[in-house]
């Protein structure tokens, strides 16, 4: 199919995603919103299959069937009380998918430095979404302790991981090769960072964290969209990223807490966190109304 026609269908899908997300936010139309949004997804997937760059379909069919069966069974089997855990797991699998899409984009010929940077972004955000979501699932389902895990040098370790991520990313961009050791280092560090970010947060705050990670997985899809120059990935990904941030904020307010408080309460900086809380609650009604 002509790329222009494919992109026109992507426009239709994007419009349906927008209507779907809007209607999901109101009780009367939520069911219709979900149907519209799933219709948009079906359109986007179906049209993509007509892309001229896709030459073989065996792998796609096998992988898609396996994924659909796992997803459907998991969605049917899960208890109503353990929904947030399930969403965390689905979110994690979306994150690792974005990581792999970015990684696979490195094998395309003629990548610019801009592409390499967006690839690294999708790997870092996707990786930390994946490991963070798995950890959030572990805490909620009580596979591991749901208490906040804090140890002395945590902040130093986190700072070290961040510095390592930046250094390895820069070194990779200077010599982008698919078998570069720095690439593997970035993947490992981003997975580690997701774990370290969720570790100091207690189980009661996990729904907020899952909502934030959901926002990240949208951003990861958006970065992957830049890496492969795909409009629908950028539009849908960044929309979910932004909507996820707002939803996270709304959930925090419903719990009478601030996002800063949730993310850093494990570090015991209560005084600082309450200061942040006051500021946010004063600003946000003006911003949201």
């Amino acid at each position, binding site marked *: 199919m002509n790329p222009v026609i494919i992109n026109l269908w992507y426009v239709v899908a994007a419009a349906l995603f927008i209507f779907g997300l809007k209607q999901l936010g109101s009780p009367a139309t939520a069911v219709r919103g979900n149907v519209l949004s799933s219709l948009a997804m079906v359109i986007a997937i179906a049209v993509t299959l007509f892309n001229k760059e896709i030459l073989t379909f065996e792998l796609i069919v096998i992988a898609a069937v396996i994924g659909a069966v796992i997803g459907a069974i998991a969605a049917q089997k899960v208890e109503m009380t353990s929904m947030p855990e399930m969403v965390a797991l689905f979110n994690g699998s979306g994150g690792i998918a974005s990581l792999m899409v970015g990684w696979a984009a490195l094998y395309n010929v003629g990548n610019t430095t801009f592409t390499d940077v967006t690839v690294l972004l999708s790997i870092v955000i996707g990786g930390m979404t994946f490991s963070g979501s798995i950890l959030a699932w572990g805490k909620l389902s009580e596979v591991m302790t749901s208490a906040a895990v804090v140890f002395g040098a945590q902040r130093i370790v986190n700072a070290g991981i961040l510095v390592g991520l930046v250094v390895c990313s820069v070194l990779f961009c200077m010599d982008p090769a698919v078998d570069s050791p720095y690439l593997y280092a970035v993947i490992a560090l981003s997975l580690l960072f997701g774990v370290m970010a969720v570790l100091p947060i207690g189980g009661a705050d996990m729904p907020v964290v899952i909502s934030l990670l959901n926002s990240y997985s949208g951003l990861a899809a958006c970065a992957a969209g830049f890496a492969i120059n795909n409009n629908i990935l950028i539009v849908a990904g960044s929309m979910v990223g932004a909507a996820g941030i707002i*939803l996270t904020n709304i959930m925090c307010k419903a719990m009478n807490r601030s996002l800063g408080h949730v993310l850093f309460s494990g570090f015991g900086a209560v005084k600082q966190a309450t200061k942040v809380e006051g500021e946010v609650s004063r600003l946000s009604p003006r911003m949201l109304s």
Partner: protein
Amino acid sequence: MEAVFLAMVLMLSIFLGFELISKVPATLHTPLMSGANAISGITIVGALISAGGESGAMSSYLGAAAVMFAMINVAGGYLVTNRMLSMFKKKDTNQPGGNS
């Protein structure tokens, strides 16, 4: 120029996302989170192109694995959201005055 155009698309979509969500009742928080999560499975589009492309075996295998994971996200996400919403709807019909 292409990058500038895409940056414009990015900026507009982010503002759109901010504006779309406002005043969500607490009962809809989890379904909305789950529904938005299903949309982030859109990365399957990129996965399909990688899996079927001719950029080498490694690229195809990575793409295929990504197709599988993204498909779990998409299929599971929409089905779970639907289940949650069907519960919610039942509750609403029991209490006709309760849908604010």
